[in-house]
């Protein structure tokens, strides 16, 4: 088994399955915060997938997307927290 096959047939599926598992939490909730945690983790796992994929396809450019993803994940979490706090304060 070559490195590519290993990445393709072992690592990528593991990561995908991880996303699937996390997604279960996303669906289950129960609170918005749980979903935000799940979302954040999905994106983070996405970074992993991208990194592996960039090795597999020999395309380092994909790593740049990882950078943006990291930024985005953070922003999403912040926004939801911001919302939660605002909502709570005004209720």
């Amino acid at each position: 088994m070559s490195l590519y096959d290993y990445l393709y047939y072992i690592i990528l599926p593991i990561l995908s399955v991880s996303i699937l598992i996390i997604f279960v939490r996303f669906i289950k909730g129960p609170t918005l915060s749980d979903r935000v945690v799940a979302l954040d983790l999905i994106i983070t796992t996405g970074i992993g997938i991208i990194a592996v994929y960039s090795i597999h396809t020999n395309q380092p450019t994909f790593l740049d997307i990882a950078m943006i993803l990291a930024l985005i994940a953070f922003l999403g979490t912040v926004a939801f927290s911001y919302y939660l706090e605002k909502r709570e304060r005004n209720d």
Partner: protein
Amino acid sequence: MKTIIFKTASSYLLPLLLLFAIFILLRGHYLPGGGFVGGLIAAIAFVLHSFANGIERTRGIIKFHPGFLMPIGLSIALCSGLAPLLVGSPFMTGLWYHNPIPVIGMIGTALIFDIGVFLVVIGVVLTIIFTISETI
């Protein structure tokens, strides 16, 4: 949100992200990126900062209304498109300065155009987000 942790982090994140945004802008012609994504990242940087410190503080940093970036960016983009008309070429024809400039690379109307895009995007995103935040 008055959390010390976020505030402190944001004041380090802001310059970091702005650098990153310009980096993405300049490399767009060769690799993924460009004015649009660059502008978004820059805008996100300011948005994060405003989440942490309040809009007034962020406004203080930018020093003028972010909406002002839109006409400026549009003017830059328009000028880059119009420049070729002066030499009788069609609108938006790429004009290039023939010797590559160190660091930035090739300078041409396309790059100037992308800078226009970059500024417009910042102006747009900040106008939208700031306006909403202010009227909540």
